[in-house]
């Protein structure tokens, strides 16, 4: 198909349709709304289910119900709305059924603002809900990648009977880029062995997240973790830029990652050997790649549009083998390449130590500003 | 002549709540204090003649423990 200039939110919505979305449940919230609005128009045209739920709490529980039938189902929201989904997300995880969620992150905490942010990393990756579970979290950095990741999200969610969340931000959602949408894929309804779809001529099926006997819940928790081990082994995805000869490594995801790329080019132009690691799966996190880079890199610069959340995963992976610096713009501020360039130059020209807490070191610099 | 009836009460389901005892218009159901169900309840049973098979006990039973039978009189059969 030809490339068209398309907005991130609309692209993700249309991609979901073409990848076989059969039911969408959501509630309006900026900067995600165009996604819901596009589906409000398209889904009924196609005779598929669209419901503007009364709230995000209701939306996630509608998703829960539809997911139990084994079809491709999705919801989307932005930060405060996703917080309201926490209980439902935990139920879906505990019931081990596939679902796709999109969080077009905005500035927080609280009502905050509607500008692009990455401050829901912890919530998405460490699980905002209660109990032991992990979700797959995918971070697109362009409209094309957002389209592709929607497809991947459905595939992985079904393969592992898990939640796959796309962690975008206001900028991905609002930006227009040339991108190619997939062909419309015909819907052929499966009847997964677990789906409670009321089909006749077979034993009844049940889907629940309750295991009153601690022993049974423990087995469930271990089953989930075992599945997670496989996901970690098979599904880590990331993109490398100029890493082969890199002495310094910038780590950034989504919008922060692509902005870092601009800074990188400028730095290279100034002769600094710096590369970029852009995690695409935030969860599972490309820990082994970071560990490997930590062996040879002089230093890391983690760049995020928050106060340092992925930073913890980088630190855990690096295990103190290389110094780590942090640069963040929280609250909906989108950094300019020049700022990141300045940080790269600072790093390249200073004595780095492992000891210090990168987040607090950055805070001191930020407060000094 | 009143229809003749009978009830079987399942030990597996009966919890000895006495709702049937209380509901039976013929007052022919009681708990069997001589027996305990696997769950440790005294189950209901017919303790004297007079069951008409009206099935009221089965209407009130919360545990679907009662099976009710009614003798088919010639009249009824003919009808």
């Amino acid at each position, binding site marked *: 198909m030809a490339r068209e200039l398309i907005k991130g939110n609309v692209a993700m919505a249309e991609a979901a349709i073409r990848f076989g979305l059969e039911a969408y449940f959501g509630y309006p919230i900026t900067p995600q709304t165009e996604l819901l609005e596009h589906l409000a128009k398209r889904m009924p045209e196609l005779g598929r289910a669209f419901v503007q739920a009364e709230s995000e709490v209701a939306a996630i529980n509608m998703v829960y119900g539809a997911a139990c039938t084994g079809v491709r189902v999705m919801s989307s929201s932005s930060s405060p709305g996703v917080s309201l989904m926490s209980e439902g997300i935990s139920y879906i995880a505990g019931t081990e059924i596939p679902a796709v969620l999109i969080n077009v992150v905005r500035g927080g905490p609280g009502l905050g603002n509607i500008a692009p942010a990455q401050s829901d990393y912890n919530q998405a990756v460490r699980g905002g809900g209660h109990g032991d579970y992990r979700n797959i979290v995918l971070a697109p950095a362009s409209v094309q990648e957002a389209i592709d990741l929607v497809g991947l999200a459905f595939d992985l969610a079904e393969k592992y009977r898990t939640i796959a969340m796309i962690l975008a931000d206001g900028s991905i959602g*609002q930006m227009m880029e040339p991108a190619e949408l997939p062909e419309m894929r015909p819907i052929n309804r499966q009847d997964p062995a677990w789906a409670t779809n009321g089909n006749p001529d077979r034993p009844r099926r049940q889907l629940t997240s309750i295991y009153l006997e601690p022993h049974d819940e423990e087995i469930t928790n271990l089953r989930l973790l075992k599945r997670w081990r496989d996901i970690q082994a098979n599904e880590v995805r990331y993109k490398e830029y100029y890493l082969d000869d890199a002495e310094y490594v910038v780590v950034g995801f989504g919008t922060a990652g692509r902005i870092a790329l*601009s800074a990188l080019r400028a730095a290279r132009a100034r002769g600094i050997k710096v590369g970029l690691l852009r995690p695409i799966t935030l969860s599972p996190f490309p820990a082994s790649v970071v560990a490997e880079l930590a062996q040879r890199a002089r230093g890391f610069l983690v760049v995020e549009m928050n106060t340092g959340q992925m930073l913890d995963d980088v630190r855990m992976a690096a295990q103190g083998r290389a110094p780590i610096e942090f640069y963040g713009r929280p609250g909906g501020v989108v950094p300019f390449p020049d700022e990141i360039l300045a940080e790269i130059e600072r790093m390249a020209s200073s004595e780095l130590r492992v000891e210090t807490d990168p987040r607090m070191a950055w805070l001191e610099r930020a407060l000094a500003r | 002549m009143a229809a003749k009836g009978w009830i079987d009460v399942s030990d597996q389901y009966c919890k000895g709540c006495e709702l049937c005892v209380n509901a039976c218009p013929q007052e022919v159901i009681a708990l069997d204090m001589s027996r305990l169900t696997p769950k440790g309840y005294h189950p209901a049973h017919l303790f004297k003649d007079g069951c008409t098979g009206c099935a009221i006990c089965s209407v009130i039973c919360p545990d679907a423990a009662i099976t009710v039978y009614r003798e088919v009189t010639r009249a009824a059969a003919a009808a």
Partner: protein
Amino acid sequence: MQKEILIAGFGGQGVLFAGQVLAYAAMDSGMEVTWIPSYGPEMRGGTANCTVVIADEEIGSPLTQHPPLAIVLNLPSYDKYEAEIQAGGVLVVNQSMVDRAAKRSDITTIFIAANEMAEQIGDKKLTNMIVVGAMLAGLPEISLEALEQALKNHLPARHQKLLPKNFEALRKGFEIAQAQMKIPA
């Protein structure tokens, strides 16, 4: 090659579409491009702006602090962005809404009374096409033809009949700008 174009003005001046037309033209000319708007809660009378980045390689940041190229359609935007333009850059100013002279001499400022010209052509909605045409004078990567083609391809059906006037607006703006830049046609 990478160039950033900032377009700013009041909501309703066609700022966002102006940017999209440039983006379409760049895309159809086989370039990489990003278009990103400022967005906010639904409120009237605010200012709107968007940034278009065109390049021949994967684009990093869709935003920039110091664009080489910009269009400002009203005074507040002029005051806000004049200082941000890269030295040597080109700034197209809608003179109809601006009553002051340029402060900077290290950039090329093109003044063009877009509102009046648009009304001459017969539709003041064409203001944005005039300034876009003018911008092309400083943006050789996108030809006038490419832009016209982009309009043909992407102008909603119900507006197709307006194409000739749009072309006229583009050309007018382009010519005046060229004249001001003294670049031989």
